[in-house]
C-alpha cells in the first residue's frame, strides 16, 4: 500500500550533489523568542516597498497592520509584538535606503483584538486572504503569494506542488513546521486544493526526513481525498531539490521556461510553512508576524529552532545564545544560498529561515581551472560556469547572452564542486548583472 502511494520523481535532473546535512536541530521543539524591541523593514520582498500607516507613539498589537502599499506586487506588513512605535527611521545597509518601523515591546504579546477568522469561499477570497496575511514565499525567494494564486487569465492552475524538500544543510524550520503544525499544513493543503479546484497536489520531501515522510504520508492518505489527488513524492536527498524549477520538473515533468512563472505552466509552488501560515490566518486572522528560524552553524553551541517576531535584530538573538567567540561570519539562510550579514543590527525578515553563525574556515585560494567540467556537469540548469568565468576573465561580456547566464539561479553548486576553488557562482552573479545592464 505505502509503496504505491509514495511517488518517485516524474523526471530527474541529471545532477545530484550530496551535501553534508548537518541538520542537528531537526528533533528539537521550537522555542518562542521574545525580543525587547523590533525594527521592521518596509521592504522584505520583491515588489514595491510599503508605506507606514502608524505614527511614532501609536499603540500596536501583535498582528496590527502597520504598513501597506497599493502597488500590485507588494504585501502588507504587520506588527510582530504588542507595544509602542518608538521611531520610524531610514537605514542604508546595502546601498538601498529602507524605512524601518521600530516598536518597543511591552512583553505582553497581546494579539490585536480586531483580528477575526477570514472566511474563504471563493478563489477571490483566497487571494485576498493571502494578501491580507502579508504572505510571501517563505522558502527564501519572498515572492508575494497572492500573485502566485492569481495567474494570468489564459492559464489555469491545475497542480499544487508543496515544497517540503528543504535541501539546504542546517535548516530544519520547514521540517519542524511539518512536525509541529501538521494540522495547519494539512488543512491548508486541502483548502487550497478545493478552492482552486486543482487536479493534483504533490507534496515533495527529501528522502533524508523519514519522520516527515511518515507525517506527510498521513496527509496524502487523508479520508477527504476520495479521488487520490493528493500524493506524496519522495525526492532523492541531493542538492538543489527544493529549487523551484527543479521541483516542478521532478513533481510534474514540466519544464519552466526562461522568464516564465510557475503559474504559466499551471503550477502553484508553495512552501509548507507558507501553507501553514495561510491556514493560520484564515482560521484565526493572525497574519504573518513570526518566523520559525533555525539558529545553527559551527559557532553556535546551542543550536535550536526559534519562533522569532519579524523585525528582531540578530544581535539580540545572539545575546541569548551560547556562541563561540571565534566566529567571523553570520548568514541568513542556508550555507549554499544564504547571504552574509554586514551588520549585527540586521533583522529577521519574512523570508528568513535560518541564521548561521560560522567560525573561520580554512582560507580558500583559487588555483587555475583544470577543465575538469564538474561545474557544468553539476549545474542543475545545464549551464557552463567555467566558460562564463573564462569570458569574464578576458572581459568578453558579449559571450554572456550566448552562455545563457540569465538562467542561473545562483544555487552555488558550481562553486561548491570546483576543485580549483574558483568563485564561479559569484562570477555568474556578476555576469547576470552585466547582462541586465546591457539590455
Amino acid at each position: 500500500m505505502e509503496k504505491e502511494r509514495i511517488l518517485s520523481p516524474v523526471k530527474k535532473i541529471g545532477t545530484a550533489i550530496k551535501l553534508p546535512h548537518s541538520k542537528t536541530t531537526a528533533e528539537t521543539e521550537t522555542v518562542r523568542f521574545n525580543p525587547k524591541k523590533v525594527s521592521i523593514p518596509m521592504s522584505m520582498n520583491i515588489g514595491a516597498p510599503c508605506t507606514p500607516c502608524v505614527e511614532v507613539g501609536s499603540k500596536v498589537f501583535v498582528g496590527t497592520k502597520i504598513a501597506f502599499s497599493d502597488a500590485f506586487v507588494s504585501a502588507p506588513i504587520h506588527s510582530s509584538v504588542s507595544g509602542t512605535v518608538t521611531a520610524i527611521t531610514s537605514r542604508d545597509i546595502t546601498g538601498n535606503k529602507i524605512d524601518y518601523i521600530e516598536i518597543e515591546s511591552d512583553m505582553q504579546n497581546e494579539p490585536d483584538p480586531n483580528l477575526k477568522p477570514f472566511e474563504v469561499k471563493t478563489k477571490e477570497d483566497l487571494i485576498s486572504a493571502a494578501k491580507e496575511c502579508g504572505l510571501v514565499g517563505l522558502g527564501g525567494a519572498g515572492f508575494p503569494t497572492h500573485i502566485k494564486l492569481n495567474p494570468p487569465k489564459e492559464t489555469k492552475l491545475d497542480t499544487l506542488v508543496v515544497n517540503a524538500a528543504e535541501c539546504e544543510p542546517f535548516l530544519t524550520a520547514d521540517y519542524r513546521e511539518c512536525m509541529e503544525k501538521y494540522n495547519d499544513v494539512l488543512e491548508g493543503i486541502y483548502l487550497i486544493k478545493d478552492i482552486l479546484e486543482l487536479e493534483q497536489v504533490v507534496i515533495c520531501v527529501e528522502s533524508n526526513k523519514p519522520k516527515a515522510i511518515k507525517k506527510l504520508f498521513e496527509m496524502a492518505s487523508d479520508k477527504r481525498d476520495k479521488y487520490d489527488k493528493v500524493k506524496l513524492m519522495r525526492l532523492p536527498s541531493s542538492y538543489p531539490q527544493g529549487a523551484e524549477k527543479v521541483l516542478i520538473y521532478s513533481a510534474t515533468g514540466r519544464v519552466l521556461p526562461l522568464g516564465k512563472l510557475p503559474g504559466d505552466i499551471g503550477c502553484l509552488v508553495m512552501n509548507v510553512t507558507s501553507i501553514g501560515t495561510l491556514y493560520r490566518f484564515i482560521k484565526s486572522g493572525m497574519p504573518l508576524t513570526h518566523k520559525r528560524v533555525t539558529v545553527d552553524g559551527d559557532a553556535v553551541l546551542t543550536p535550536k529552532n526559534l519562533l522569532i517576531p519579524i523585525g528582531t535584530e540578530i544581535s539580540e538573538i545572539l545575546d541569548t545564545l551560547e556562541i563561540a567567540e571565534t566566529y567571523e561570519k553570520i548568514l541568513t539562510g542556508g550555507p549554499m544560498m544564504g547571504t552574509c550579514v554586514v551588520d549585527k543590527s540586521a533583522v529577521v525578515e519574512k523570508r528568513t529561515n535560518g541564521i548561521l553563525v560560522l567560525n573561520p574556515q580554512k582560507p580558500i585560494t583559487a588555483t587555475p581551472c583544470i577543465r575538469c567540467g564538474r561545474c557544468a556537469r553539476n549545474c542543475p540548469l545545464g549551464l557552463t560556469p567555467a566558460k562564463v568565468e573564462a569570458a569574464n576573465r578576458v572581459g568578453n561580456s558579449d559571450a554572456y547572452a550566448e552562455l545563457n547566464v540569465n538562467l542561473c539561479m545562483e544555487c552555488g553548486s558550481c562553486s561548491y564542486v570546483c576543485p580549483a576553488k574558483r568563485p564561479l557562482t559569484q562570477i555568474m552573479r556578476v555576469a547576470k548583472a552585466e547582462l541586465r545592464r546591457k539590455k
Partner: protein
Amino acid sequence: MKDSLVVSSSPHIRHRDTTSGIMLDVIIALIPATVYGIIIFGISAAAVVCTCVLSAIVFEFLWNIILKKPQSVGDFSAIVTGLLLGLNLPPKTPLFVAAIGSFAAIIVVKQMFGGLGYNFVNPAIGARIVLLVSFPTAMASAGSYLEPISKLGVDTVSSATPLMLYGKEAAPSLKSLFFGMNSGAIGETSAFLLLLGGIYLVLRKVINPIIPVSFIGTVAVMTYLFSFNINETLYFVLSGGLFLGAIFMATDYVTSPTTNLGKLVFGIGCGLITFVIRKWGNLPEGVSYSIILMNILAPQIDKLTRRKPFGLPKEG
C-alpha cells in the same frame, strides 16, 4: 561580540576535493605500475623515472621563479606529468633525453601556453612525441627496450616492443602481457596494475570510465572486425601503451572533453586512430598520436556536445 564580520559571496561551504588532491590520487594510482616497472626493468628504469619527475619539478619551479609567477609546484601537476612521461619511455632511455622530454612537457607544451589548464595537448604525450621524432634511435629502436629481469635472471637484454612481435616466436603469451612479463615502456607492461590504478581513480571519482572503456573497447572491436581472432584481439589490446594511454593520459581533464557524450566521442576517436596507425601506419605504436590528435579536437567536441540549458525557448 565581534564588531566586524566577514562578508563573502555564497556558497559558504565547499567540497573537500582540491586540484592537488586530484593530482595526488593520480600519483597514487600510478604507484603500482611504477614500482612494478622498476622491479622488472631494474635500476635504469628507476633512473629514467626519477630523472623525468625531478626535472619536471625543477623546470616548473624555475619557470615560475624566472617569470615571477606564483609557485605552482605544490599542485603536484608537474609530478604527474613527469611520472607519466617517465612511464612512457623505454627503460634504457638516456637520462639527458628524459630530461629534454621533461623540458618539452613542462616548458614548451604546458607553461608556454599559459600553464596548468591552458595546454592544448597532454604535456607528457606532447613530450613523448617530441622525443620520438627527435631521438628515434633512443626511443623506438629495438635496442632501447629490455626483457624483464625476472625472466632472464640478473642480466637484461634488449628486446622489441611486443606490438612488433605478434605472430613471431618471441611473442609473449596473453598472460604475460596482462601481468606485464614482457618488454615495453617502463609503465605500460602490466595491464593488470594499470587497470587497478584506473579502478582506484574511478572509485575516487577522479576519472569517469567513459573514455578508457570506449577507447579500449573501440580498439578491441576494430581489431576483432579485421581479424575475427579473439587471441589476436586480446594480444593487441593488452600490448603497447593502450592501457596506460587510455586510463591515465586520455582522461587528462585539460585536454579531453568535459561532457559525457563528448568523452564517448573522444574515446571512440582515440580508439579508431590507434587502430588505423597500428594496422596501416609505419609506426609501431599509435596510442600517443591518437590521443594528441583527439586532444586538438577536444574543444570542438565540447562545443558540439554541450548540454542544452534547462527551459530555454525553442530556437527558430
